[in-house]
């Protein structure tokens, strides 16, 4: 056998191996890139990924990529080819909020939606033996009487809880100092030990230790959110109109792929995710963590996400207001 025929045979062999592989999508691991580190959100994504992986017949892994308010994860995903093997876990902060804050260049309609995943509510919590106030209105009155003295944490800066909490404080004209923490549990710990006055509590952390902090205000008017925090008072129960409703003050994610992904692969992924999200076992697991599985499919993406974007846009000046008010105090 001369060199030429060996070459021809090897080309033929490669093409024979290659053809069925090309025809059958998916044939290798699919990666879902999560804009957060280890925590309840990672667990929820892992549950959905496992169920989807079973539907698709390939392993699906979740790659936790924290950093820069979720932007790093989006940019990492955008660097990968749009071949259906990379899914972007489109959490609201990098998807909607960062573009509003001019920290990211994309728009939500630059992506193709697969299906909505899950939402989680936030709340404000303070120490259980707090003596200065017993409810949210009283805390706001204390804060107004002592401008700049309240110290709170929204976890990281410029994230969704920061925007929502700044908006609430702005509504009451209360100037407070936001102290950034990399991990929300560490901030909650410092509230417990009295260094911080209050902090945002996500529902996953609340479920781990419901008695750690007193939940003073659930930042959502939805009944499911109130129930998730053990029936604590919510923004529906206070007199002030904060101008936030629906999904706007909550965390949620919508799984996405890049615009240039082949349509038939998008359909395959949509079908798998749709099936996973309807699976009662998957839903029960997600609910156990305190998150709410979402039922919307891709057809509702534009309407729902643009609605949230419009609401968040009107709130965007709250963080700026907080910074300016603190500066004015110094």
């Amino acid at each position, binding site marked *: 056998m001369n060199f030429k025929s060996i070459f021809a045979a090897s080309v033929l062999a490669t093409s024979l191996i290659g053809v069925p592989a090309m025809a059958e999508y998916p044939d290798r691991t699919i990666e879902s890139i999560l804009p957060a580190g280890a*925590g309840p959100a990672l667990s929820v994504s892992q549950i959905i990924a496992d169920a989807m992986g079973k539907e698709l017949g390939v392993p699906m892994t979740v790659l936790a990529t924290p950093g820069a308010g979720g932007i790093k994860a989006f940019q*990492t995903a955008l660097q990968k080819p749009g071949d259906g093997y990379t899914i972007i876990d489109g959490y609201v902060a990098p998807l909607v909020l960062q573009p509003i804050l001019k920290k990211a260049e994309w728009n939500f309609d630059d992506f193709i939606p697969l299906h909505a995943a899950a939402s989680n509510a936030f709340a404000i919590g303070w120490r259980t033996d707090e003596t200065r106030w017993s409810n949210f209105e009283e805390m706001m009155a204390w804060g107004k009487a002592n401008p700049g003295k309240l110290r709170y944490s929204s976890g990281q800066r410029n994230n969704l809880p920061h925007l929502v909490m700044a908006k609430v404080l702005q509504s009451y004209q209360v100037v407070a100092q936001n102290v950034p923490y990399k*991990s929300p549990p*560490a901030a909650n710990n410092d509230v417990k030990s009295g260094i911080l006055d209050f902090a945002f509590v996500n529902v996953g952390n609340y479920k781990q230790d*419901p008695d750690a902090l007193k939940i003073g205000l659930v930042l959502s008017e939805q009944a499911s959110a109130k129930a998730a925090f053990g029936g604590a008072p919510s923004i529906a129960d206070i007199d002030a109109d904060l101008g936030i409703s629906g999904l706007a003050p909550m965390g949620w994610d919508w799984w996405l792929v890049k615009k240039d992904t082949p349509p038939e692969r998008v359909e395959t992924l949509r079908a798998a995710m749709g099936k996973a999200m309807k699976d009662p076992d998957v839903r029960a697991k997600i609910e156990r963590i305190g998150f709410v599985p979402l039922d919307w499919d891709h057809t509702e993406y534009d309407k729902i996400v643009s609605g949230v974007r419009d609401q968040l846009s009107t709130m965007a000046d709250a963080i700026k207001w907080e910074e300016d008010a603190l500066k004015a105090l110094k």
Partner: protein
Amino acid sequence: MFDMLLQGAGLVASLSTLALVGAGLIIGLLVGALPGLGPLMGIILLLPYAITFPPVQAMGFLIAIYVGGSCGGAISAILLRIPGTPLAAATLFDGYPMAQNGRAADAIGIAISASALGGAFGGLILILFSPSLAAFAAGFGPPEYALLAITGLTAIAAVSDQSMLKGLIAGTAGLLLATAGTDEFTAAERFTFGLFELSDGFNIVAIVVGLFAISEMSNLLTGDDLLERPNLAIARPGFRTVMLVLTRWPNLLRSSTIGACVGALPGAGGVISSFTAYAVAKTFAKSEERYGEGAEGGIVASESANNATAGGALVPTLALGIPGDAATAVLIGVLLILGIFPGPTLFAQHSDIVGGIFLVYMLANIALFVVGILMTPLFVYVLRLRKVVLIPTVLLMCAIGTYAVGSSVFDLWVMFAFGLVGLVLRAGGYPLAPMVIGVILGPLLENNVRRTLLLSHDGLRIFVERPVSATLLFINVALLLCVAFFTLRRLFAERQSALVEEKA
């Protein structure tokens, strides 16, 4: 407590649990020994498989990877002078010289025995003092973490033998490198040069692998024995190495206690504890022990500390639901997926699972000793590879391990660049470890100092007003005075002996 363990024993006592712990340990030792990968990566890779088991078995499997991975890095540190994980960076000071003196098997044996004993000690602390240690950790706020970071930085004095000044320069460079990334407090980008890959700073794994592995392999390349098969007699490691460790029981107990306490503090971690334990051991050591030249006590200190940290890190994880480090954060995630919430409610509602997790942790440490010693000949075989085979294999492993952390090609470039930095530092006689200490402690120090100042409305009194913070401040001042005293005494002794020689 005993009820809890007794209930847990029912969940642990099965052949499948034993098999999972054994498999987890072997995987852990391998991911630990391979440069780049580490216990965290091992846990993440095996997570989808683990969640198909009941909670205690799943935790047994992953905790075994955690335990094995915390020890595995020592193997490559001892054999190749490359810490498989940043956790083992303090192990190479004495491990590598010991291997060079023909005692590779002993060094690995000591590392494994010390890890197992330190880990078991951490486990005892976990079982006996979980609630009180959790309360101790809960009192740690930003001022305490800032001072703890300074305690860690004093370790630089211990690991820069030849020149304190060069050590401090390398440490400061590390602190500066840690400033790259997004500033937590203003959300501004610092030293990212518009590269999104740097928005979360440099990947610490890429830095460690680059500094140590690339520069070490380049160093080996310059030898003229690339094709020769090293003619080494491979000594059989024995279970007797445990005696070598046990005779150093004060060191073992002290280092394990440091490890367990640091582990219990969320956000601190094994690198700080191993360097601190090493520095303390060196300070207390007699000069004839020759730390840095193959002292058995050096390996005992750093390895018992970093494995005890694993036990300590499980304390806030289980008792408070607050992860002690990144690996335990993933363990919490696994428990959540399995429908179990770590925290005080777990102790009240599922005491059998808590007992089971305590027991699988202890089991993993005992098994580490047996599995590790039995596998040592396999590891030591690496020393008999010809360099022409060894160098490309190690470089390939480094590349795979570093890439796997974040699926990022950029990290490979970072690794390569730090390889060059490592070469330059070595050529100038600068120690590499202080740079690693700086990079790891930089964010802990900077963010907590700034957080403290925000909390105190820019006052410094907060550092002395809080009892724990004041105690740490006192310890730091005492440590610095000790370092100054011992350095002066050594210099004085050297001068004296030089004078005596001159006269003679």
